[in-house]
């Protein structure tokens, strides 16, 4: 079974400071990992993904994430936060070793990011 944990319900950061939103995962094989953002009354918007290759992946709006296999983590980062980054962030995983399936994503519970002036 695949699972994702986002240990923080909320992260507060001052604008201009770096931000980190944590995510750890569990899969039986190798993971495909994704970050999505949800703004109020909107759907989930894709930010970035890790499939294979470089452990540091870059995505939309200046976000990046680092895949760490030994720690089974995929933390989302941004060097300088903006007030407009305030939203709900979801980490998701897909076990690439599972065959015959339909590409089900398993999501974490979400982390509310609040960036203040």
């Amino acid at each position: 079974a695949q699972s994702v944990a986002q240990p923080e319900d909320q992260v507060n950061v001052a604008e201009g400071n770096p931000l980190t939103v944590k995510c750890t995962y569990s899969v039986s094989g190798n993971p495909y990992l994704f970050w999505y953002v949800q703004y109020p009354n909107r759907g989930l918007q894709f930010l970035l993904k890790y499939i294979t290759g470089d452990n540091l992946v870059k995505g939309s709006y200046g976000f990046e994430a680092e895949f760490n296999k030994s720690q089974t983590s995929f933390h989302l980062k941004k060097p300088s936060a903006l007030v407009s980054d305030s939203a709900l962030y979801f980490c998701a995983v897909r076990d690439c070793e599972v065959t015959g399936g339909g590409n089900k994503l398993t999501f974490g519970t979400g982390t509310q990011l609040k960036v203040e002036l």
Partner: protein
Amino acid sequence: EPEVTQTPSHQVTQMGQEVILRCVPISNHLYFYWYRQILGQKVEFLVSFYNNEISEKSEIFDDQFSVERPDGSNFTLKIRSTKLEDSAMYFCASSEISGRGYEQYFGPGTRLTVT
């Protein structure tokens, strides 16, 4: 930029009634999905659909749920006899062919309220 659309944005129905939630996936995508998010809880997978058949479904997706691709553009989720606990935000998503490593693009959701 192409996007997934869903209608209606909000549906209110009485317990026991049938509802159909509609989605128009991105036009060149071939994998389609439904997820739901009960208020305050995580996003949960319901079903995936490829080549006109269900490719995977969760334990939530019981006999009261069905999906259909009635034409070349729409993808629907039907709940035959709604229950109070079906109240949730339902998200449709789509991805390109060979979807394992491809990101899924989500629609804005339909908020279903069962009274």
